């Protein structure tokens, strides 16, 4: 029971943190922010890894875990890279804008 209440506290505080982190976002950044947050939500790789590691040689479980890991990593790697590609275009442009 104490693990559950601990987990619920973690859930509550995590949600509050998320609400506070993003207050004002310039519209310029909505798309990259959405994409970046989306990459972070791929953190579910941790669950996939746990499933695989604790499969105890169960083939079906290994397969499900492997599939899940593939989907999650697709989200993580693709998400971070595509966000970086977008943000790279905002960077280094302070110079040379005199026209």
């Amino acid at each position, binding site marked *: 029971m104490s693990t559950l209440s601990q987990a619920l506290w973690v859930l509550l505080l995590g949600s509050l943190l998320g609400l506070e982190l993003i207050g004002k976002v310039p519209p310029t950044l909505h798309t990259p922010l959405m994409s*970046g947050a989306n990459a972070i939500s791929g953190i579910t790789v941790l669950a996939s890894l746990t499933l695989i590691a604790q499969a105890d040689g169960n083939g079906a479980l290994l397969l499900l875990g492997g599939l899940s890991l593939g*989907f999650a990593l697709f989200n993580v790697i693709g998400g971070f*890279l595509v966000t970086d590609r977008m943000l790279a275009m905002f960077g280094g442009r302070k110079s040379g804008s005199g026209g």
Partner: protein
Amino acid sequence: MDFASCAIDLVAVLLLALGLKGLAKVRTARSANGLAALAMGLAVAGLLLQLQPGPAAWLWIAIGSAAGGIAGLITAQRVPMTAMPETVALFNGCGGMASLLVALGVALFQHDQTDLVGRISIDISVFVGAITFSGSIVAMAKLQGWLDTPDWTQSAMRHGLNISLAIASLAAGLALPTDPAGWPLWGLLLASTLLGIGVTLPIGGADMPVVISLLNSYSGVAAAAAGFVVGSQLLIVAGAMVGAAGLILTQVMCTAMNRSLLNVLFGGALGAKAGGSVGGGGDEAGYTRIVSCSPEECAMALESAERVVFVPGYGLAVAQAQHALRELSKLLEANGAEVSYAIHPVAGRMPGHMNVLLAEADVPYEQLIEMDTINPEFPRTDVVIVLGANDVVNPDAKTDPTSPLYGMPVLEVDQARQVFVVKRSLGAGYAGIANALFELPQTAMVFGDAKAVLQQLCTELRSQGVGARARVAA
């Protein structure tokens, strides 16, 4: 959990939070993205140290990582900037699928190790994961133009259908804790997948960004639920954080479009309510006072203009005309004109999408002016050129209470002295609504592909000696 892995987890959470915070500021966004990626790597490394997987597990970890990693790498590099909303939807759907598969695995093969809380977590993980997946895929397909909005989805019937699906999900979810690997699991999976489709399909393309943002929030919730299933606090924190942040971002987007979230989700497609044809181009009925003009006439107006504002929309991106636009504005600047770009909060298909596209064409950041700043400037603007934007410049949104767009903040280009609308045809906008701007006396339509028209304008201006004069001056 030993002290070392606990410390690693704490550092990872801290870095993730800092990353998410930094992503909301222009100056820090890029490094924050790297920081979040680093945090993710750290969390994975810490978990692997703690789990000590066996050889068979390592094999599957290698296979899964290679497949997902390479696919992600290729997709991220190949996808064009114009297709960014679809791409985010696709990634997001896969994240939901991952949480779903984990819950499925535990439910099918390890349910004897779960207590009531674990089984409720499986419920939530399957439910939210399936909705995220099917909803995201439908959103992607609609943005890609692979799926239309079927007529039946605009009738009230869809609410009945979705409510039945929600009830079916709830029933299966209630039954699941007593029978975790049996029919309730499959029933829940089926009902929630269909619910994801049933809720997303009726929503018009113009509202899709909001839906994607909301689904993004859901995938965070799905991750947090998966955290409960496998007992990972790090996963719970990170999932909850992304879920809450996604909700805020969704709200910010809704505010920008002056629509409530409930209205977006249950209001149906805008154009369908107005009786227009959704996505049906070439519907020219209703326009009576259209003036069209040639690129030459437009160029003449530009040549003598002192203040020019471009209003770029998604059509510009589709025509890949960003670079031609940059070329034209360089010519105009050389001619002594003051050039700026009016950016509506939802220009493109996602807030901020247009900024990314113009940044790609090296448009100086300072020239991109947001709606609230530029609206008071329109009365002293000589020429406005609308490029592939439609609904965001529709004056009906301010003046006509019967218009479905009424109340949406728009760029007040009708205040400018002269307006040119570059458009392929008189087809309706993305929301399927006629635009009163086209019939105003100061508006002229320049029909053609945005890129071709812009190139013609450049040629015309050069032939009038605009570039040459600048060279002499310099």
